[in-house]
């Protein structure tokens, strides 16, 4: 290692450089911990809240020509707390007794819905190269250098100043007001609330408003860094927040604050010293190029996986873990066999009908869409396994699919391997990666598992993808990777209809396997684990092994689907298909419809690919009305995210999925009515005798 003279000055410079972003991270971490501790919500929508404020600020400043202060007041002091208040009042207050995982899912749904809702309501859309300036004019170009070591830009100083003021304000609130005192009590020991008679509704409302305010502030401060104002960039903020909060082990606000500051400085140090080391150690080079932006993910993953304290205390990480979950509705378990079979037959007939219509009547576009829907359904079966069966939320299914797709590309491109063989190899590789990932990650369980998979997805996105043996290097990433269609004996699948048949066959086979797994010992074991890990262990189930199997299976299915998607589109197209934020939407879709059944996955696939064309573009209505469409069509495709994002809020109440819940309730209703009728008939027969 080269640690020559002048290192001391470099360290100091890095520390100074890292302090302003560190202060913003601290702000973010504080906001995150506030809501986590007061209502047990791991708020993944935090970044979405930051985005909305930043976009509002931009809209007011640039589009409407407001000056800084009113724009800031509107975006950060009015809109942000309002969003926080609404989230608490309308949603999370009613989920207080829900499990931590279902609250996490709700937050994910909101993170998908909020930005699109804002964009559709205000007509905002991110434009490349047009970002709002900072809070002060020329913030990025005027420098001050008080110590003669590191010149601070105006923006940095403003960020630092604002963060310090906000933290002092929070400190004062906690110290000098009774509400602050109550909040501190709740934050330090959530279970105290009930005992001490604190008005927890009020406390959590205020906590949410404050948290949202911090999110908005951080969003506005951080926006000048991005080239385009887009929601996914702000999603990184959440990861930063969680990383900083996790460094402080989520136990207290001061520690979260230090965690944020430390993270900022750590990244600056890294940025200073890594380039020097990589002169000597060339294998570090790709890391050097890509690690800096993804540092928070790496830190987060490292903290989660390597820090034994977090690993060993999953219960401590979840402040409400002692609270009993609400009783499951009986509807979720009772299911009449006959009606289930009838529904299944109906489903298959319906699919056949759709298939035949598309086959004979559909044009290229519809064949394409249906093929995509089928492949997405296949990918979503991976969620059926990991979430529906094993009860774990994995946020890296997109990464597994990407591994499949990239394997197909690499094998076909370098060694001319048949793409179908390559897709199977991709599934195997994804399974191996999934199994390996499961070793450190699955011991975490619950929300920590979800967060670790998210960190892994971002890590892959930011670092692994840049290696030429993974992502094919930078240029191919931009242009996409060419992937050929397969030829199998006499059949050339370059023909879209033939390829559709192939895809349907693959989907059917995998569906049958998934059902067999669900009905077999593996499924029984996983359902047991989901129901009660404690009890499952006590009868000899090894949770680690069972979950590793589930993870590997799920990854394999996602990998296979990803490979097929690449073959279908003749292109890997990572940026459109497989990014971590795109994969968040997958989870939202599947849990909204049903993560428990194969039909749920199929419906989610259809919704993913067809909802836009059939509903939002009005093709479905046009078909019914023979071409007459009301004037407000076509609707924005963003409604997809809004509708399904908001619908996933229902997950906390109906973990089997909204549609599935409705179906089951209907079947139970029909069932009881039939039974009642039978009873009446038989009691008439027996003339008052005993019924069956």
């Amino acid at each position, binding site marked *: 290692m080269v640690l020559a003279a002048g290192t001391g000055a470099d360290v100091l410079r890095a520390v100074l450089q890292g302090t302003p972003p560190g202060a913003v991270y601290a702000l973010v971490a504080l906001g995150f911990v506030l809501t986590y501790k007061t209502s047990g919500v791991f708020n993944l929508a935090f970044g979405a809240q930051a985005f909305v404020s930043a976009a509002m600020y931009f809209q007011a400043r640039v589009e409407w020509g407001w000056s800084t202060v009113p724009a800031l007041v509107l975006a950060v002091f009015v809109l942000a707390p309002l969003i926080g208040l609404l989230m608490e009042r309308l949603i999370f207050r009613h989920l207080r007794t829900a499990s931590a995982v279902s609250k996490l899912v709700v937050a994910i749904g909101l993170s998908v819905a909020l930005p699109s809702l804002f964009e559709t309501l205000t007509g905002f859309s991110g434009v490349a190269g047009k970002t709002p300036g900072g809070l002060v004019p020329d913030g990025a170009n005027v420098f001050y250098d008080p110590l003669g070591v590191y010149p601070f830009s105006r923006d940095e100083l403003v960020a630092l100043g604002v963060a310090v003021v906000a933290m002092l304000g929070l400190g004062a609130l906690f110290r000098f007001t009774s509400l602050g005192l109550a909040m501190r009590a709740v934050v330090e020991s959530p279970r105290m609330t009930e005992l001490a008679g604190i008005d927890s509704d009020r406390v959590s409302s205020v906590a949410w408003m404050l948290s949202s305010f911090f999110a908005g502030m951080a969003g506005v401060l951080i926006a000048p860094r991005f080239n385009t104002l887009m929601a996914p960039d702000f999603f990184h903020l959440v990861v930063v927040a969680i990383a900083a909060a996790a460094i402080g082990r989520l136990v207290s606000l001061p520690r979260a604050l230090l965690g944020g500051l430390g993270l900022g400085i750590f990244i600056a140090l890294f940025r200073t010293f890594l380039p020097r080391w990589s002169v000597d150690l060339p294998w570090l080079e790709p890391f050097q190029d890509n690690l800096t932006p993804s540092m928070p993910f790496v830190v987060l993953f490292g903290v989660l996986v390597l820090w034994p304290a977090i690993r060993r205390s999953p219960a401590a990480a979840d402040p409400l873990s002692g609270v009993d979950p609400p*009783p*499951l509705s*009986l509807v*979720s*378990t*009772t299911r009449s066999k006959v009606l289930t079979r009838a529904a299944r037959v109906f489903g298959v007939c319906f699919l056949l009908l759709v298939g035949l219509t598309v086959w004979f009547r559909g044009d290229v576009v519809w064949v394409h869409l249906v093929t995509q829907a089928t492949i997405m359904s296949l990918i979503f079966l991976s969620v059926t396994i990991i979430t529906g069966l094993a009860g774990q939320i994995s946020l890296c299914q997109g990464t597994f699919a990407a591994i499949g797709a990239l394997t197909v590309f690499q094998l076909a491109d370098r060694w001319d391997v048949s793409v179908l063989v390559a897709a199977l190899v991709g599934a195997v590789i994804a399974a191996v990666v999934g199994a390996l990932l499961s070793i450190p990650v699955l011991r975490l369980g619950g929300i920590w598992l979800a967060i670790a998979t998210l960190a892994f997805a971002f890590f892959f996105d930011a670092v692994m993808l840049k290696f030429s043996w993974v992502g094919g290097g930078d240029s191919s990433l931009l242009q996409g990777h060419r992937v050929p269609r397969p030829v199998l004996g006499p059949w050339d699948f370059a023909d879209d209809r033939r390829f559709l048949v192939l895809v349907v066959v693959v989907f059917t086979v995998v569906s049958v*396997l998934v059902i*067999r*797994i669900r*009905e*077999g*010992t*593996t*499924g*029984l*074991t996983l*359902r*047991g684990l*989901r*129901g*009660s890990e*404690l*009890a*499952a*262990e*006590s*009868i*000899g*189930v*090894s*949770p680690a092994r*069972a979950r590793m*199997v589930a993870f590997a*299976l799920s990854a394999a299915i996602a990998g296979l689907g990803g490979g097929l998607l690449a073959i279908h589109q003749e292109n890997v197209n990572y940026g459109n298909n497989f990014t971590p934020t795109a994969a968040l939407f997958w989870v939202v879709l599947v849990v909204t419809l049903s993560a428990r059944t194969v039909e749920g996955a199929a419906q989610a696939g259809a919704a993913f690919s067809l909802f836009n064309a059939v509903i939002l573009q009005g093709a479905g209505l046009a078909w019914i009305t023979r071409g007459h469409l009301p004037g407000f069509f076509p609707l924005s495709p963003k409604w997809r995210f809004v509708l399904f994002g908001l619908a996933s809020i229902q997950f906390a109440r109906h973990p089997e999925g909204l549609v599935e819940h409705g179906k089951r309730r209907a079947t139970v209703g029909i069932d009881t009515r039939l039974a009642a009728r039978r009873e009446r008939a038989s009691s008439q027969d027996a003339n008052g005798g005993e019924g069956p």
Partner: protein
Amino acid sequence: MTTLFEATGVRKSFSGIRALEDVSLRVEAGERVGLIGPNGAGKTTFFNCVLGMLRPDAGRVLLDGQDIGGLPVHRRARRGIGRTFQRIELFADMTVREHLLLADRIRRGEGSLLRDLFGRGGSDADERRRCDEVLELLGLGDLAADPVEALSLGQGRLVEVGRALMTEPRLLLADEPSSGLDREETDALAATLREVQGDRGFAVLLVEHDVELVASFTERTYVLDFGHLIAEGPTAEVMADKRVRQAYFGDVEVGSGS
């Protein structure tokens, strides 16, 4: 013949609270042993240490004379320790029969993924017979196809017992099986427990608040108070012991119920 189960010098504290202090305890094969003590005495903590849900700070846990202290929970369970829970732990979303079926499959170690993939994962006649036997024994035959959410607490506790029985334990740790049950249900449960134990001959370590149940079911009893063992011996003698009555029963007459 070696002792079936033995714990020596088990100690456990939770950030200052000393839940267990040097607890040593022995259960012979087929024996019915009680473990009593007031709330918070450390009984559940002891069970957790035995099965590995908690790591004791010190002490050894022996099964068949072998130290099992280093094994994870599921390995200990497979060596023949079954357990029921004070706060009932059933598999949400599963039927009564599935609870037993899962335990049976795990015991036989036939969780092969390949079997499932080839569609051989369904239940066979042998399994069903074994499940039915236990269901009959516990009087749960009519409820086999019901989801556990539909059961009463007493029935739920029976399912827990049945699930533990399917693993064919040599030692059953029963944690307050009567808690939350009324007199009638408790008596029914006791009768069932006695019958099943007589039938299968496994050893039982019973943690119980219900004095009648302990007095009628167990042969020997240990008394735990604030983490210390304060008495042990034949149940009748222990129950008559002055110290025990002072520490534990207070003024309550033995046998007068709660």
